[in-house]
């Protein structure tokens, strides 16, 4: 069950929760499964829970990979 979306943490609230923002839509999610989350971090949200923090450097590296020219055709 994989529908999960990356959203930006806007506000930390009591009860180990946060308000996240995706494209202007705000939702309350639980932080019970993650640690060291700060406002401005991006998290992957699945069924109302943040599952993992997103690494912006790795994201940039991945995007750069997409743009690379590939290797030669095989012999």
């Amino acid at each position: 069950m994989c529908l999960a979306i990356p959203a930006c943490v806007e506000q930390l609230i009591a009860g180990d929760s946060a308000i996240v923002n995706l494209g202007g839509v705000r939702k309350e999610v639980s932080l019970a499964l993650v640690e060291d989350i700060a406002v401005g971090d991006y998290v992957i949200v699945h069924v109302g829970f943040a599952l993992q923090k997103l690494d912006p450097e790795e994201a940039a590296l991945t995007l750069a990979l997409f743009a690379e020219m590939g290797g030669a055709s095989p012999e």
Partner: protein
Amino acid sequence: MSTVKHNYTRPLDFKQGRVDMTHGSGGRAMAQLIDELFLAAFDNEFLRQMNDQARFPAPSGRMVMSTDSHVVSPLFFPGGDIGCLSVHGTINDVAMSGAKPLYLSASFILEEGFPLADLRRIVESMAQAARDAGVPIVTGDTKVVEQGKGDGVFITTTGIGVVPNGVNISGERARPGDKILVSGMLGDHGVAVMSLRENLTFHTSIQSDTAALHGLVAAMVAAVPDIHVLRDPTRGGLATTLNEIARQSAVGMMLYENKIPIREQVKAACEFLGLDPLYVANEGKLAAICAPEDADRLLQAMRAHPLGSEAAIVGEVIEDQHHFVQMETAFGGRRVVDWLTGEQLPRIC
């Protein structure tokens, strides 16, 4: 000795009162409800006659009639309520034939226990919508069902109108080569309503787009009298509407994803919920299909009207014996935009 005031009845308690079975029984209580609430709000020459029917001279030309029942839940949502929705919905159904809407009827099924304050709010919203649209509610009915047998209130509206000469708008007139247009941003209403439903709460500033479209239609027909098809994509969204037309006209369609106007927030809300915006309901938008040489002129006419300012050409009609509605994704691949299956349930996966 006390004096009995002639014709005195206690006015309805709109603050604390609730609908009860006497309001539907045909007796004094019902007459009072009709008088103090419905007639007071809808007030027009027809209703003032106080008959069970409205009488008016037969309009000349081709008449159209349409009916719609409204069971939306919740009853009040950002941007509207079941009242104005029921007025707009039927005006729009009539207008989709190119007709000028003339009169509306409204019947109510009320649940025992429904607060009169909410009922008044709904009725006044209907009255306002009807006044703004210039289409009076000329006749109606009220029934009350026992508590538990109705979702607060159900409203059915019926409307009639007249189609101008030279206008032949019908779902079987789409032809290969025709262009497909939409009048603005899609998905607002469905997302606004879902934002309130139990278990799916989130904070957005999305409002329902509920609106009466007959003014926009009149402007469109004036610019392009030979519009082929008009339809408003309500339940099931644009995808369902286009599939219906494709089947009726025995054609296929090709849409371009990056041309379809959808607000960022609506896209984001759909991401959260695992919904496809093409299947989300609209209550103030229309889809139009016209000959390719008329498309630009039609688009200009739509954009010049406040309810069509974000109109766009989103695709074209093609030959296809299977009557598929297809879409070129922004990504570059192609997919089928199929009929909606069952109710659109949010995906988890």
